[in-house]
């Protein structure tokens, strides 16, 4: 019995962390927030093998598991790294291989980091009044909102019958409208389809549900990393900042805020590990664990985001310290692919309650 990370997994996470510390510090995140491009960071990650992490070796990838992918997601969250990771390196490869498209040429380009895939899947979770996709297996009509990794060259889109499509960003009849969102480390937008031709990858509703659940686990891991970084920053700041002639870290009021963050967050680590492990090892459990993991980790991360900001006092509120990038990243993860109340209901239904 072994519940934990293997040596290889620890090394993987260490190497991604080292790269991001060196190549994607906060100054780089700020540049991205202004220009909305991070091609060089993604190139660097691709050269580390991150782009092809879950893609088989025959297609030029590394052939690792969804569990490994969640560990990388955690690292990206810790550094609030802008990257097309979840769609391009995790969901799209899984969508292609699990729908019988193991030979699809896109896989090689994804592994090389030269192709990217955005996710237009929110409508498959719960379509808003002015959105929703109608498809017939070949042609799409309708609108998708807050598409994840909007800047990608391809999109995964789901229709009203849980069919899954791959659409070229330049496809005929596709109108793209960027949408500013609170998290400047992520690019969002709306897609409007008017008789847009699309490649139907799958009509398997279970596969679509699984892909959404995998996305939820990746977002939960991202929030885990982002919240851990906020806690680390809060503790470091409290040890340094002096008021009343002593570090504020010596005041119980401040210590208890930090202890409450750590106490809530640390169990999320085991939860994210298990949910990520279950993707490959316990498919029957994915539904419930993915929903609970994203909902619970989002609640905890939201609490950490607020509390860690408060520990920083007025500086936490400024752009100068930049804590808000993590705060907003956690906020973004919470809303995407199903907010907590919605997916807790999914968890209840999946248990037959």
């Amino acid at each position, binding site marked *: 019995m072994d519940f934990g990370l293997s040596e290889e997994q620890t090394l993987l996470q260490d190497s991604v962390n080292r790269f991001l510390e060196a190549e994607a510090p906060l100054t780089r995140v700020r540049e991205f927030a202004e220009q909305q491009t991070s091609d060089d960071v993604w190139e660097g990650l691709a050269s580390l093998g991150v782009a092809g992490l879950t893609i088989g070796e025959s297609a030029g990838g590394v052939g690792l598991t969804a569990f490994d992918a969640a560990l990388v997601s955690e690292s990206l969250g810790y550094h609030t790294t802008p990257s097309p990771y979840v769609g391009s390196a995790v969901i799209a490869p899984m969508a292609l291989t699990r729908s019988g498209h193991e030979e699809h040429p896109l896989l090689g380009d994804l592994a090389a980091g030269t192709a990217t895939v955005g996710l237009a899947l929110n409508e498959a979770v719960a379509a808003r009044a002015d959105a929703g996709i109608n498809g017939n297996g070949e042609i799409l009509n309708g609108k998708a909102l807050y598409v994840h990794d909007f800047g990608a060259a391809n999109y995964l889109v789901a229709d009203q019958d849980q069919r899954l499509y791959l659409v070229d960003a330049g496809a005929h009849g596709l109108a793209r409208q960027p949408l500013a969102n609170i998290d400047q480390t992520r690019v969002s937008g709306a897609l409007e389809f008017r008789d847009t031709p699309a490649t139907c990858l799958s009509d398997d509703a279970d596969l679509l549900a699984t892909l959404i659940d995998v996305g939820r686990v990746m977002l939960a891991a991202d929030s885990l990393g982002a919240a851990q970084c906020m806690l680390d920053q809060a*503790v470091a700041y409290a040890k340094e900042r002096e008021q009343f002639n002593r570090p504020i870290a010596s*005041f119980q009021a401040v210590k208890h805020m930090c202890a409450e963050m750590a106490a809530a967050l640390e*169990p999320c680590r085991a939860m994210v590990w298990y949910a990520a492990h279950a993707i490959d090892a316990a498919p029957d459990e994915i539904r419930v664990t993915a929903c609970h993991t994203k909902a619970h980790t989002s609640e905890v991360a939201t609490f950490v985001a607020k509390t860690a900001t408060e520990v920083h006092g007025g500086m936490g509120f400024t752009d100068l310290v930049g804590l808000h990038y993590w705060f907003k990243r956690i906020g973004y993860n919470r809303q995407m692919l199903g907010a907590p109340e919605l997916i807790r209901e999914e968890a209840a239904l999946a248990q037959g309650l």
Partner: protein
Amino acid sequence: MDLSYGPEYDAFRDEVRSFLTARGADAPQDRAKPSENTRAWQRTLIEHGYAARTIPKEYGGYGAEPDILKSRIIAEEFAQARVNRGLGGQGIAMLVPTLLEVGTEEQRQQFIPPTLTGEMTWCQGYSEPGAGSDLASLRTSAVLDGDEWVINGQKIWTSTAHIADWMFALVRTEPEAPKHQGISFLLLRMDTPGIEVRPLVDMTGTANFNEVFFTDVRVPKGQIVGNRGEGWQVANAILRHERDSLGDPNATLTRLNALTELMKTETMGGQRLIDHPTYRDRLMRIQGRVMAMRFNDMRILSSNINKSGDTALARMVVKLQGTELRHDLEALGIDVMGELGLGYGKDNPYVRDGGSWQFHYMFYLGLIIGGGTSQIQKNIISERGLGMPKEPKLPATR
């Protein structure tokens, strides 16, 4: 990540199951108070290695090598079958491991065998009215007079003092020494003249605890465990053990299942409680929290087995998170029942689950406070887990 236990352990699990199938029906319901029935069941369990498993044979145990997974399997299977796991209590849980670690050979021979079989029962005399979170400031004194310690003072929160045969106690033997170095660990008979036990009724309406008063209580000199002045270290080794056992997520899971069952069967206005969207969401929130603590527990278990992984913080949070979670879970059991949730006591025909939701709601508030309060837990987490400094000490006021 490999969550299988392996063939050796699967075989062991089958063995435990066969035992439970064959003998489970013999188990008495009562666990707390040793009666002839519970003692007979305890002897059966020891004989088969399901109680006192790793205690050496020479002291009346089963004598197995410590094996964390086998112990876990026993716990899982007994819980699953809802079969009495044998005697618990502070003698078995805390005193026996202490004696094995620091007791003399004579003390082990004298105390361990009857404790394991329930012939000798124990209470723990640690807390005092003036020594709660700051336990090391305790003042109950023991002065050596010839061959005897003479004890004066008072203990409080002493569960089972009214039925225990013996007490293990922390007393101050070196009044001039710094507070942590002036304490000794003594064993004393509860029928010694000068001991008075008064039940302490708590908010649940039950006397779960007692006060114990000592007036010139004389105890043989040899009934000290460890050296004079080293009682704090002796006690600390097992206090940590107590903290680990509070907030066990597997016990919480059993309650969560009971709550889910309650919400599926109980109705209001013809609607099942589980179909009410707000109650339903609250249940799901609790379920998510229970899940997180269970995976945290698996991570700790794995680290214990494999001696790997940095789980210091994961351990430190269990008591704080586990007791708060359990309290919240019990609160939901009351809330979902509205006015029906008020029911308490045995004679009320409308009370549900024997009033256990109200009882545990209050009892777990007690456990949030007891065994190191939530605030003390937060000090531990921030200081030992996050490396934050201690609060500067004020000059002593007395």
